[in-house]
């Protein structure tokens, strides 16, 4: 390969046609209530970890639902599982369960 001296960036677009949604569908199957997220951001606003480091629970799980899995496991590992988000979520989503589920589906175990 010829080295042009630069690399091509990862495409910006979330390409649903090319993304493999199998894992995403599995996750939604196990935790159907995740589909009810209205993206209000309460979870991220209250997040103990998200106030200390760059971690956005809402964004990570939304990307996972769209089939964008890269980095999700590492991101979810920043969560302390303290449970504040679960106390506040207006949709009653089992957010701690979501963190564990995503880690289980997209991690090494």
């Amino acid at each position, binding site marked *: 390969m010829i080295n042009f001296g630069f690399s091509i960036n990862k495409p910006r677009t979330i390409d649903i046609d090319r993304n493999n949604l199998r894992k995403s569908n599995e996750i939604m199957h196990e935790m159907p*209530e995740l589909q009810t997220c209205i993206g209000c951001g309460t979870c991220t606003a*209250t997040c*103990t*970890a998200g*106030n*200390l*480091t760059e971690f956005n629970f809402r964004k990570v799980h939304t990307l996972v639902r769209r089939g964008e899995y890269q980095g999700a496991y590492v991101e979810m*590992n*920043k969560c*302390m*599982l*303290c*449970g*504040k988000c679960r*106390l*506040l*979520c207006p949709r*009653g*989503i*089992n957010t*701690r*369960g979501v963190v*564990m589920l995503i880690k*289980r589906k997209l*991690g*090494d*175990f």
Partner: protein
Amino acid sequence: MTFFAKFCIPFIIGTVSLFAIVLIKYISWLRDLPKSDLKLIIKGIPTHRTLTAIVEVVSESLLHRRIFRVNPLLGYMHMSLAFGWFLLIAVGWIETIAYLGFEWIPLQGHVFFKYFVPLNGITEHKPLFDFVMDFLLLFVLSGVALAWFKRMRSRAMGMKRTTKHTTFDRIALSSLWFIFPIRLLAESITAAIYGGGGFLTGGIGTLLSSMIDVNILTALYEPIWWLYSLALGTFFVAMPFSRYMHIFTEIPLIFLRHYRLKPEDKEKSYDNFEVEACSRCGICIDPCQLQLQLGINDVQSVYFLRDRRYNMLQQKIANNCLMCGRCEQTCPVGINLNTLRLNSRTSMRNIPNEGRYSYLRGLDRSEGEGQVGYFAGCMTLLTPNTMTSMQRIFEAAHEKVWWADKDGGVCCGRPLRLTGETDSAQKMVDYNKALFAKHNITTLVTSCPICLRVLREEYNLEGIEVLHHSEYILRLMRQGRLRVRYSSEQSFTYHDPCELGRGSGIYEEPRAVIEAIGQLLETEHNRKNAFCCGSSVANTAINDGQQLTIAQHVAAELDSTGAKTVVTACPQCKKAIVRGSKLKVMDLSEIVAQNLH
């Protein structure tokens, strides 16, 4: 004298296999014990602990004292089977000695003594032994009858639900059910042919000989003893693989427990003794709120231990538990159900990761200065009434306070521990420990019982006393630093948070505080029997609707006391009960702050 007949073979095979397997299990479990546990055992043997263990073996393994406390009939059933069978064996032994003197007789000779008596020409009749043996057989048979009855109507024995069994359990159970009725028949037929026997076997024997032709009885003689031997053999073969392994496991367990062995965060060999000591009696099913209020009936401790024992434990079973401790409270074997579940979760989910939570380094968002530190806990930040009330209490007592996490801190680590990620949780423990040390506090007050437990059990904070705010407030009141108004007009009911009550043994402090302010009306389920609010961080399996259903049940009980206000001492419980209660729900600190002198 010969003490062998062909029909003894199934029994001999069963006995040999039983003892071989049990021995292999004991040896491999003991061999794999960590060194520290072995040391405890060696140190413990020559002490009084051995004696107290023996006493407990008699009172629990034979008499089943703790099951009596659950329900007398259920206790009697277990006692008649265990103690009765034990006595049958023991008295049988004495009987053979009485007839034959001290002479070595093979095992089957003792067990099938009634069969061998006429063969060996023993004609001397000892009515006392006949009576005692028949009486004991009747005692055991009454237990068997109750077991049959329990299968059909468990409610009469104080149990709404009983365990669903595995195949080995069914084989063992069925053979166990047949052993004693067949023994009765075999001994009666023997008595019918050869005479002898006590009031029971002799009585039935006389009846049989008067009704049935001797030739038929003689034809039945061998087959019935075969059947008895087969039933025993089948039971013994199935036993180590079935729930009846508990009979042999509970005894060493009691000794090990007296030598202070206990399960820990991570699985270890000692756990085998606890896991296999479970008799699957199913007493843990009824108190479980997942069953009681949500109708989930395949995740309870009995099923968790079963699945773990047979290596078929799934995350969805391990995770679906409130860890409220209600089952642990009633377990007649005293198994550490929560710790075992926790270390199962750890085995499934713990992945050491050095880089995790590296973002905590150098962080300090605390404020204020004082000897007393206040760690609100993440959840308390969402119940600001508690925060402001604590502030007023501190001010009233003229306490200088260092606020660890007023503007958001780092989680105590318990929620993560409870999901099994023990090593990562340690990072938060280490961070907070360093933070407390840096600020030179001597007392640490927290409003969150979840934090309290981990602060007390895992932090090893030397030189820092950890208090729940209920203990702290009561101490201030007793020292005269805090004075509250009493009014009999005010009536409260109190919800025991699991982590505070069963978890940390704090039942009376909050009650003493409440009673200093107004009247306390107790719920039906209080203290050790208190319900869980349903929002426990230990459960990541149930959904919001299910949490709400539990909360509504709990709230209904609180509302029915007739009190005007519900008081609790945990932010999580408060948030849960508010969803279901028609009454005002307040934290303990709020009622104190509102009634300050």
